[in-house]
C-alpha cells in the first residue's frame, strides 16, 4: 500500500483527531435569497425571485390546504382534488394542462402533503404568460363533472396500491402516524383510505373547490428569468379578476393533546424484515424548540458518523438501515427513529438501542464538535437546496405558507447558528420523555393491517 502521508500526520491520526484537516470553523453562508412580496386586493400573495442565469422560469401555486383539512370519512380528499385540477377549465380542455406545458418543452406537476397542495410548472422563460393564464383559469373556472371524477378515482386508487400497499414497507409511514396521533388529522394518510375515496361525492368535490381554491388561500411563487414590471402586470391581468372568497377559509383543525402515557404497538405485516419505531411528540415547524430538535436529528441520523447509523448499522450490525426523521409540520407532529432489523438480530435489542440514543441525548446532550458538524450540515442543506429555481420557489413557499413569515427563508439560518449545546440538552429533556413516547414493532408475516381499509 502506498504511504504518501507524513509521519506527523500518522501521529495525529493515531491520536484520533483529523480536525486540522478542516478549514471550516463556522458554517459557510449561503447567498441571501432576494425576493419581492406583493398581495393582490383579492388576498392572493405573490412572491417574485429574479434569476436570469438560464432562460427559464418556474411558476408554483400553493393552496393552503392539505390532508389535515380533511374531515373524518373523507380522507384523501386534498390529494384527490389535486388530480381533479387537471380535468380542464373554461379555456383549457380536460387533461390538456400538462400536454400544453409539455408542447413548449416545459414540465408541470403537482403534489399534496399534510399542509399544502402545490401546482408547479417549469418552462422556457418566454412562456410565463401561458403558465399564469392556465393557473388562473383553473382557479376560477375548474370543470367538475361526474364522469371524469369517477374515472380519476380509479387512478388514485391505483396510486395508493402502487405507493402504499404493494411495496414492502410501503405502509410504514401510515402505520406510524395512525398510531402516534389520537385526534389530529396528521393521523390519516395523505392519500386517504380506499373506503373514503369510494365514499366521496361530486358535491364534496365542488364544496372543497369553493372553500379552499380561492385567491385568499393561495400563494403564487415565480422564480427565474423575467422582467419585474412585466410579471406584475401579467399577474394582475390574470389573477386580480378572481374575486376574494365570500367566507373565510376554515381553520378548525383538532389539536392533539399532550400524551400522558407511553404507548406500545405490536403489529404484523408481510414484510421481509421486522421494523422498530420509536417516536416522540414534537413541536410545530418554526417553534423555538424545533431548532435544537433539528440539530438533534442531524446528530442522530445525518451521515455515517451520525449516532444511530454508527451504533445500529455500523458497530452492532443490528439494523439494515436506520434513520431518524423530524417531520416538523405546520401543526405539532412527531420526531421518530426507524430501524429495519437485520436477520438474526432481535427487535428487543434494536428497541433498546434506539431508546438508549434518546436517553443519551437527555443525559449528556451533544458535544461541541457534533453541534458544529450539524451546523455545517445545515449550511450545506441550505446551499444545495437552492441550486435550481424550483428549489428556491419551494423554500420561499414554505417560509410564506407554513411559517407565515417570508423573512424566515433566510433568517432561519441564523436561528440555527445560534443553537447551543445547552439548548439541545434542554429540548431533549423536555421532549424525549416516556409519557410522550410510542414504541412500535412490526413483525413479518401475518395479514394486512386493517388500518386503512
Amino acid at each position, binding site marked *: 500500500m502506498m504511504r504518501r502521508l507524513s509521519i506527523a500526520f500518522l501521529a495525529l491520526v493515531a491520536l484520533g483527531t483529523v480536525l486540522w484537516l478542516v478549514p471550516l470553523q463556522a458554517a459557510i453562508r449561503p447567498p441571501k435569497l432576494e425576493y419581492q412580496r406583493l398581495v393582490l386586493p383579492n388576498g392572493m400573495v405573490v412572491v417574485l425571485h429574479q434569476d436570469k442565469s438560464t432562460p427559464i422560469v418556474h411558476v408554483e401555486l400553493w393552496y393552503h390546504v392539505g390532508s389535515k383539512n380533511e374531515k373524518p370519512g373523507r380522507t384523501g380528499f386534498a390529494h384527490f382534488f389535486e388530480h381533479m385540477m387537471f380535468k380542464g377549465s373554461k379555456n383549457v380542455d380536460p387533461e390538456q394542462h400538462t400536454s400544453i406545458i*409539455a408542447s413548449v418543452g416545459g414540465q408541470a406537476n403537482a403534489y399534496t402533503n399534510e399542509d399544502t397542495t402545490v401546482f408547479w410548472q417549469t418552462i422556457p422563460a418566454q412562456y410565463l404568460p401561458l403558465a399564469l393564464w392556465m393557473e388562473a383559469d383553473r382557479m376560477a373556472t375548474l370543470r367538475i363533472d361526474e364522469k371524469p371524477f369517477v374515472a380519476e378515482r380509479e387512478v388514485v386508487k391505483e396510486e395508493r396500491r402502487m405507493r402504499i400497499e404493494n411495496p414492502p414497507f410501503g405502509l410504514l409511514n401510515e402505520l406510524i402516524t395512525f398510531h402516534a396521533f389520537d385526534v389530529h388529522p396528521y393521523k390519516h394518510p395523505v392519500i386517504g383510505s380506499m373506503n373514503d375515496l369510494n365514499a366521496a361525492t361530486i358535491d364534496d368535490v365542488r364544496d372543497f373547490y369553493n372553500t379552499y381554491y380561492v385567491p385568499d388561500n393561495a400563494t403564487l411563487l415565480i422564480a427565474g428569468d423575467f422582467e419585474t414590471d412585466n410579471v406584475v402586470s401579467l399577474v394582475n391581468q390574470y389573477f386580480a379578476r378572481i374575486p376574494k372568497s365570500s367566507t373565510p377559509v376554515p381553520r378548525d383543525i383538532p389539536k392533539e393533546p399532550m400524551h400522558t402515557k407511553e404507548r406500545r404497538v405490536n403489529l404484523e405485516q408481510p414484510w421481509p424484515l421486522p421494523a422498530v419505531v420509536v417516536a416522540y411528540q414534537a413541536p410545530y415547524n418554526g417553534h423555538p424548540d424545533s431548532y435544537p430538535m433539528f440539530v438533534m436529528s442531524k446528530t442522530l441520523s445525518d451521515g455515517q458518523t451520525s449516532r444511530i447509523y454508527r451504533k445500529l448499522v455500523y458497530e452492532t450490525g443490528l439494523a439494515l438501515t436506520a434513520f*431518524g426523521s423530524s417531520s416538523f409540520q405546520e401543526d405539532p407532529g412527531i420526531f421518530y427513529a426507524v430501524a429495519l432489523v437485520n*436477520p438474526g438480530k432481535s427487535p428487543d435489542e434494536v428497541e433498546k438501542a434506539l431508546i438508549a440514543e434518546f436517553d443519551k441525548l437527555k443525559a449528556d446532550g451533544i458535544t461541541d464538535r457534533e453541534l458544529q458538524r450539524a451546523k455545517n450540515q445545515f449550511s450545506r442543506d441550505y446551499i444545495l*437546496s437552492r441550486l435550481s429555481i424550483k428549489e428556491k420557489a419551494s423554500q420561499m413557499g414554505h417560509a410564506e405558507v407554513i411559517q407565515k413569515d417570508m423573512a424566515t427563508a433566510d433568517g432561519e439560518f441564523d436561528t440555527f447558528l445560534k443553537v447551543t449545546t445547552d439548548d439541545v440538552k434542554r429540548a431533549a429533556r423536555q421532549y424525549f420523555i416516556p409519557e410522550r413516547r410510542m414504541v412500535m414493532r412490526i413483525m413479518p408475516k401475518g395479514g394486512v393491517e386493517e388500518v386503512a381499509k
Partner: protein
Amino acid sequence: MRLKAIATLGVFSALTALVAAQAVPGLAFQQAAPGARVSNWPRESPPRPLPAHSVTFPPYEIRKLANGLQVVLVNHNEQPSVSVRLIVRAGAAQDPKDQYGLAMLTATLLDQGAGNRSAGQIADTIDFIGGMLGTGAGSDLSFVNAVVMKDSYDVALELMADVVQRPTFAQDEIERQRQQALSALKVSTDDPEAVAGQVIDRLIYGFHPYGMPGAGTTSSLAALTRADFVDFHKKYFVPNNALLAVVGDIGAAEAMAGIEKFFGGWKPGDVPAQSVTEAPQATKRVIVIDKKDAVQTEIRVGHIAIPRKHNDYEAIDQAVKILGGEGANRLQQVLRSQRQLTYGASADLDTYKLAGAVIAETDTQTSKTAEALRVIVDEFSRLQRERVYDDELAGAQDYMVGHFPLTIEVPDAIATQVLNQLFYELPVEDLPKYRERVLRVTPDEIQRVARWFIRPAQLSVVLVGNADEFVNDLKGVGFGDYERIPIENVDLLSVDFQRRAPARPE
C-alpha cells in the same frame, strides 16, 4: 425549515417519500363545462409567448492529465459549493461469472477505509465539513461522488484520491458490508418492483452480462474474497480508464491545480478488454412470478434493442418516446387516461455500451392484469405497423427541443451531459447541436426503424403478482403459454428461473 431532516441510510429512500401525484398528458375529450365559480370569466385563447432569449450550451472545459485521466470542468458560482465526480469504466458487466455483486461491493467498500484513514475517519472528515461522499456501481461504470462547500475543495479531493486510488479492503469492513448486502438482497427479493426489473433484464439479455444480477446472489456474495476486490480494483481503477468532473464555484486553474496534486501521481495501467458476448435474439417468453399477498401486478414487456453508439439511436429513441416517453406518450394515454388501469405507464430505451433494450412498464390492480398486458402489446404492434402522425412526432420533438434550456440550469446537469458524451465516446461537439439532431428525424424514419427493431411477436413478458387471480385470463389475450414461479423460488441464474436446491437457511 423546509428541508426535511431525513437521512435514509441505505436503500430505502422510498420509505420517506412524500405522496406526490404525477399529472400526465391525456386525450382531449370534449365536455360541457358546468357552472364555474367565476361566472363572467372570458373565453380566451392562450396568450402569446414573450420574445425568446437565445439558448446556448454553457461553457465547459475538457482536459487530460499525463496519466490519461480525462477531466471535465464546469464553473458555476451561483452557490458556494463544488461537486466532484469520478467515473471508472467498469461496472457490474465486468463481474466475472459466478462473482455477481463484485463491482457493487467493491464500490461500496471504497470509502470504508482508504489510505491511512479508517471507515470512521473518512466518514468523520466528510460529515464534519458538511460534505457528502457516495460510491456505487452501475452496469457499465463505477463512481465516487463528493459534494463540499467551496472552501473544502482540497479536503474532498484528498479524500477522493484515497478512496479511488488506495482503498484498504479491510477484512472486518468486508464482512460488515457483505452482511448488509445480503440483508438488502433479502428485502429486494421480496419487492415486486425490484424482482420484475431483474427478471425482465435476465429474459431480454439472457446470460449476457447485462442480464445478470449486479447486486449479487446469496451464494455469490458469500463467496467473494478480499483478493477479488483487490483484483477488481487494481484492474479497472486506473486513470486511463476514468473520467473526473469538477463542477461548481471554482475556477479552472484552481480546479486543475488540485487535480494535478491529488490525481497526477495515479499510475496508469493496462485495462483488460471486455469480451463481447452477443445478446440473444428476442423470443416470446412469459414469466409469471407468483406473490400471494400482492394487490397489484407489476408488468414488464420488452425486447432487445441497440447499444448507445448505434447510428439510428436518435430515431429509435424518439420512437420509444412516442410509445412511452415524456411529452407524447401512447401508453400513458391508453392505460391511464382512457382506461384508468394504472397510475403510470412508460417505455424506456436502455442503451448501454454493448447492447440495449426497449422495456415498457406499468402496474395495475390484479384483476386487470391481462387487459393491461394486451393494451401494451397492441401499442408495440401499432408502433411497428403504422406510421406515426406528423403532429405526434412534432409534439415529441417540440418537447425535447423546448426542454433543452431546462437541462442546462444546474451545473451537475451540464457536467452529466458532457460526461455522457465522453463515456460513450460520442462527439462532444454535438452537445450544442441538440436541436438539429432532434429535428432531423422524420415520421418516415421513425417508421423505418420501428419496422425492423420493434418485434411485437417476440416480446418478453414478466408479471409479478397474485397469479391465481389472473393466469386464467392470459390465454384470452394471447399469452396462454407461460411459466409460473413462486417469488420465493426465483433464481436468476437458472435457465428456467426456478431454484433447484432448497433455499439456504438464514
